[in-house]
């Protein structure tokens, strides 16, 4: 039963990663790509962590996994912001149809 | 403690002292000169101590951490190591004294820590019996060398240092890959154990090729010498002296050591290839030196040519002849002394006239007789004229080449000597004449003149010390003796 949930969560996570990657490759400009990447990564990673946490041997191991997710969220959000800001400051204009 | 020292452990001091001195000189920039000179003197004394110890008790062997090969790292010193340590101490002392007056405050603060760490790295290199440990020491030597080469921060110095860095890193990487292959072939990085275990398999051959190529690059063997002239010619004078006298010898020492211990019996053709490149280096380096209009470049090309002589040992040592490699050890020592003196002389001449154009030396012999005298004496050794260390080395090498009927080597050596005379006397000739544009001479501190002269005189005196030095070289009779030390 736990295995089943794990697999489900992991697959869902993988799907988000896939979507994020497609977005990264297909979106027209930096800002939209960033959007796709961070959104997909944060959620995808969260799902994967959840899937793995179910398999963890101890509570502390699961805790570590969650900590990783927290750190990645923090870093991802900040870095995405910094990149976007840097791009704006350098005069990279958002894409318009 | 006294007992410990007299017992066995000068070798350890030789490594720890300069490293510690280097750290101290970094921490107390105000006292660099004092710390530096004290450290170098202590190192010189330790070399004497080690020599005394080796003469009485034979080879020195120390298992670091008490583990012993193959798990741990072994330190090892025999006649050849001692010889190289002597080179370090002698040249180091001479150049250190010179450097006291050469550098201004700011440069001195940057020079001494780098130089002391370089000295520590070199000592560690000559005492190591472990090919991976040798890699680490090579990196110390390389990075310190680059730092020193760029010390003056001039465009030319930076350019030279960059070339040197690229070459030395590439050389180290090739060497490291060779080490990886040897380790996985024999399960050890200890030289004596490798000598026992290695067989003639493809990985060993590949390692041989990689190690030879990497070390030849670091030693600036023709045609891998492309980086050397600029790097050595554009550095500050004491640094050029250290690089030409000590640093290129370090990688050659590893090659010689590995050859004598591990590779010599397993190589068909490689020895002749190295010998042929050595011959080409002698001729090419000398011809290039002859064409230079700048003194420092000329001296640097002379190094290329002189390194060529060293490589003649490989075809000759195939027969395992003590006389061949002892000749080369002698050449290393005398070249180190003579060449460091020459670079110091170049430093004096640049200080004096503000340039190093050979044709504009403008009666330097009148104004700086000691400096020009140093150049002449060093030149005698470089040319291989008697009485000098260079002559003894060349005599021994010629003897061995004739003994083995290697006329090609003999003829190249003769031509090399004549060409060396040509480029050295070209300089001396202009030192006597008046230049078209005469300049106001600038005084050169006495210490700088005398230290250059002392190094040159040492190169000459070597010509009379062959017997005791051969005795030292014979300690442990390097061929297959590291194994015997086990």
């Amino acid at each position, binding site marked *: 039963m736990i295995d089943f949930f794990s697999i489900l969560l992991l697959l869902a996570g993988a799907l988000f990663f896939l979507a994020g990657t497609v977005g990264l490759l297909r979106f027209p400009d930096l800002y939209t790509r960033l959007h796709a990447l961070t959104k997909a990564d944060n959620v995808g990673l969260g799902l994967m962590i959840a899937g793995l946490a179910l398999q963890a041997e101890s509570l502390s191991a699961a805790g570590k996994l969650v900590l990783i997710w927290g750190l990645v969220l923090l*870093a991802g959000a900040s870095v995405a912001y910094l990149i976007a800001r840097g791009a704006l400051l350098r005069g990279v204009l958002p894409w318009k149809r | 403690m006294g007992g410990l020292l007299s017992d066995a452990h000068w070798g350890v001091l030789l490594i*720890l002292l300069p490293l510690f001195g280097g750290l101290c000189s970094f921490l107390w920039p105000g006292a660099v000169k004092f710390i530096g000179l004290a450290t170098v003197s202590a190192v010189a004394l330790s070399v004497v101590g080690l020599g005394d110890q080796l003469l009485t008790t034979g080879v020195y062997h120390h298992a670091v951490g008490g583990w012993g090969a193959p*798990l741990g790292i072994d330190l090892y010193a025999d006649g050849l190591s001692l010889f190289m340590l002597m080179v370090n101490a002698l040249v180091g002392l001479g150049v250190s004294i010179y450097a006291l007056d050469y550098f201004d405050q700011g440069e001195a603060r940057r020079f001494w820590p780098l130089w002391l760490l370089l000295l520590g790295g070199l000592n560690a290199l000559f005492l190591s019996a472990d090919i991976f440990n040798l890699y680490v020491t090579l990196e110390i030597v390389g990075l310190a060398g680059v*730092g020193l080469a760029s010390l003056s921060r001039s465009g030319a110095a930076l350019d030279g240092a960059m070339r040197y860095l690229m070459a030395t890193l590439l050389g180290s990487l090739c060497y490291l890959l060779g080490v990886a292959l040897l380790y996985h072939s024999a399960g050890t990085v200890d030289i004596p154990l490798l000598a026992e275990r290695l067989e003639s398999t493809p990985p060993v051959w590949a390692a041989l090729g990689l190690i030879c190529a990497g070390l030849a690059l670091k030693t600036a063997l023709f045609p891998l010498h492309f980086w050397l002239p600029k790097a050595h010619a554009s550095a500050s004078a004491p640094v050029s002296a250290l690089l030409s006298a000590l640093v290129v010898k370090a990688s050659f020492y590893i090659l010689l050591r590995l050859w004598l211990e591990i590779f010599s019996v397993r190589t068909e053709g490689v020895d002749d290839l190295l010998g042929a490149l050595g011959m080409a280096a002698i001729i090419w380096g000398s011809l290039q030196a002859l064409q230079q209009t700048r003194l420092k470049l000329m001296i640097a090309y002379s190094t290329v040519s002189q390194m060529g002589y060293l490589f003649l040992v490989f075809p000759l040592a195939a027969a395992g002849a003590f006389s061949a490699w002892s000749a080369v050890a002698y050449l290393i020592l005398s070249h180190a002394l003579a060449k460091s003196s020459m670079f110091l002389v170049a430093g004096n001449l640049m200080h004096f006239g503000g340039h190093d154009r050979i044709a504009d030396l403008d009666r330097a012999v009148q104004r700086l007789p000691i400096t020009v005298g140093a150049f002449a004496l060093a030149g005698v050794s470089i040319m291989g004229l008697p009485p000098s260390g260079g002559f003894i080395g060349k005599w021994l090498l010629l003897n061995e080449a004739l003994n083995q009927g290697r006329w090609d080597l003999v003829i190249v050596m003769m031509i090399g000597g004549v060409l060396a005379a040509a480029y050295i006397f070209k300089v001396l000739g202009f030192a006597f004449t008046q230049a078209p544009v005469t300049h106001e001479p600038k005084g050169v501190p006495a210490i700088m003149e005398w230290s250059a002269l002392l190094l040159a005189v040492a190169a000459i005196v070597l010509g009379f010390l062959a017997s005791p030095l051969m005795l030292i070289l014979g300690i442990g009779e390097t061929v297959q003796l590291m194994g015997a030390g086990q």
Partner: protein
Amino acid sequence: MEAIDIALGLFDLLLVFLLLWLAWLVMSSEDLFKAIVLFVAFGLLMALVWVRLEAPDIALAEAAIGAGLTGALLMAALDRLNAVKPMPAAAVVTSAKREQPSLPSKVLPLVALVLIVLGLGYALLSLPDVADGLVPNVKEQMAQSGVKNPVTAVLLNFRGYDTLLEMVVLLLALLSVWSLGGVRKLSPRNTNPVLASLCRVLVPVLILVSCYLLWVGADAPGGAFQAGSVLGAAGVLLLLSGWHVEQKILLWPLRFILVLGSGVFIIIAAVLFFTQGGLLTYPVAQAGWLILLLESAATLSIGATLAALFFGGIPKSRVDQ
């Protein structure tokens, strides 16, 4: 089990091809920025490879140093490079022009490359399939080493002498960099509240992680180098967020921390040499805490050195003016 092996095998193959492809792109792409980004990706994949090769210690080091710090160094260098050269485009054009060599000079290196790969590959393949290396020796002596992580045992005990010299290499790199004089500051950034708050959160965490890695290194993957590089990363982050170090600290304390690692190593080596009669011969009972002491000092030094290397030129201090 079979399926997992096959999957892992496929994963390995995928990794191999990705790495090859990335390496080739790093070498061949015309845009330096792109090359650096690809190189960082290359480093991260390398970390994966180390995991696959059961070398978690290296994986940690590679992720922190190989990909992280080296990437940061490269990026900073590129930034400074572009700042030095007002017209990078022109330089790129000339370098592109220069990098269009004649056919033989393009083909010959390629041929050499193939030959080297073939030759060395042949050499590798003719190695015996099974070799124990030093595994038995390490196992035999582990009990005397004072730690439980074999890699730490090798690094700090069996081959501790290498590590001593390696600390010197690190210091030498910094000395040489400082000797070159100041480099241009990174292109100015407005102080940024998000970055600052990120620092406030991340730096303590990084220090914590560093301590953890240091402590755990005795028994599990980790140790001074990994801990030190995480500490270095914290330093880099601080520097990026516009952190200014006080003059007073730059003068003596910084130098002290920089030499701490190699200095403690040398002093302990000397003390052991006079008391135990051997270089770096730890008494078995004290080996554990001696190693911890060495590692702590090394961690501080490595962290400070790496951060200082990232900063570049010598920090201005009265001594060197």
